[in-house]
């Protein structure tokens, strides 16, 4: 989770919404990524999908002939609850399990808005468990550090001159 937070810091430094993640197989980090939505002008280029592309593009990590679920032995650590899109993608990839920092009540796909990971039924993909609360305060604070500044890459940036960084964090 500390490595995922480093990736979120890298995203923040690059002017991106600070979300970072690492994928772990066995004892090893096999991929890490961060949000690149602004850089690639594509609101779907979330950290999780970036890392999945990296894993699938590497013939060592995904040898030819890998079965239907290339991530069945892989765990995801991500600073924010995966959004509905990523939660669905992870299930289609057969992820083993997910640990995340803070919940996401606007987009969350692991219970925040809807439980794509386990409560929505799917005719073939097995459900996976997703547990939140790991480094939660840090994950919230880095998001706040981003949102007190103006997201100048949003199509219609809002003036946030009056915003102050709140440091108090309420329990979930």
């Amino acid at each position: 989770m500390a490595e995922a937070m480093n990736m979120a810091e890298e995203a923040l430094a690059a002017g991106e919404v600070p979300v970072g993640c690492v994928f772990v197989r066995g004892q090893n980090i096999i991929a890490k990524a961060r949000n690149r939505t602004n850089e690639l002008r594509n609101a779907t280029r979330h950290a999780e999908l970036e890392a999945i592309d990296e894993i699938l593009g590497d013939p060592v990590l995904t040898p030819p002939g890998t079965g239907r679920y290339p991530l069945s032995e892989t765990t995801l650590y991500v600073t924010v609850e995966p959004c509905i899109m990523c939660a669905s993608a992870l299930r289609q990839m057969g992820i083993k399990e997910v640990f995340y920092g803070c919940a996401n009540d606007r987009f969350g796909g692991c219970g925040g808005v809807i439980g794509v990971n386990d409560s929505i039924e799917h005719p073939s993909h097995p459900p996976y468990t997703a547990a939140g609360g790991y480094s939660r305060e840090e994950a919230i604070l880095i998001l706040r550090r981003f949102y007190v500044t103006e997201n100048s890459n949003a199509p219609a940036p809002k003036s946030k001159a009056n915003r102050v960084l709140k440091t108090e964090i309420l329990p979930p």
Partner: protein
Amino acid sequence: MALALGLGSLFNHSNFPNLSYTIDASTDSIRYSTTRNVEPDEELCLYHGGNLWFEPVGPNGARPSSGAQENEDSWGGLSNVDGLQDSRPIFFNGSVDEVVPEEELPFERFKPPPEEETLETIRTVQAWAVDVPEPQSIGPMLKWLRRSELDASELGHLKRVRKQGDTSTFLLTVSPLPPSLPEDISLPEPFLVTVPSSVAVTPTSLTLKSSLWPTVYAPRRKGEVEDWSQGKTRWAWEAMHVAVKEALRWRDKGELPIAAYVPAPYEELDAASPSSGFMAHDTRQSVAHPLRHAVMNVIRQIADDRAHSEVEAVKAQIPASADADDDAPRNGTNYLLTSQILFTTHEPCIMCSMALLHSRVKEVVYLFPMEKTGGCGGATCLPTLPGVNHRFSICRWKGETIQEDGLRLDASVDA
């Protein structure tokens, strides 16, 4: 039988044409437009109809599998766009601006209900109010209000007077300074109240808002959906048929038969330099990547195109928008799919539906529902979920107008 003259008689036939056309009856002309990105030196081809009078040649020459009958029409069969439909629908008969009745549209529309407000999300403003304790003062007070400059339209969505017991409270103004009150009526000092800043559109919102101040109830009218003109409906008809053909084309090459198409908006067809649309198909088989769905592919294509054109603009030393126009948004004009309509052969899966929501698509039109895996009404319906920050409309194509068994997918597939 009439023949298309001019350019129209020059285009060769292809079963998978890169051109489509619309007939503009008001000017007796035919408008040809590309249906996808065209490579340099690529030949522009049209579909000449299901019953060819010549032997087709070339890899695309195979005759369509569905039994199409040639339509005798004033355009020499040209309006039989792709041989998939047996007869021309009714919206091909009138002028482009005529509104198509809802039941004649080739699709059913589902508009997400307005987002239900909660006490936390109601927008409010501060307004000055004054208590009128004496019932006999109410009449003079109303008269004074009418004469005064305070009959502000900003408060038109609220009731003017709130009665609590014997006390009537008058709403005065949203101006920051307290208003001056009539001198001939004995009144206490005005005070600030928090009031809703818009009408109530649902019963729940009425209850919530009226707990702050009595609010006008104005439910949305049932028919409050955008009208589709004949021209736009023809545009949609062609778009869906183009997507179907693309899906079939790639099925024959071993992919899943799913395509997603974002045509240039109908409203922009007359623009000086119409941008062609974007078309993508499912590539999860060929690139061995389970997430390379048609919708994800088309979003990526559009994003790459936009990034590329920004780079080109910088190269050409076109002044950056920040210098040229301070009011211009700093990153293009919009999110990727703002005000765009996406056509796809199959209801997008949950991942793709959310990707479309992230990209702020306006409408999603699909042919085959995916009841167990879809995110636009199948397994769930994302744009209606509480909390999501964008809503888009969903149009489900009426199956009887396109019979294409070659596109059937297993119910467990994420499209």
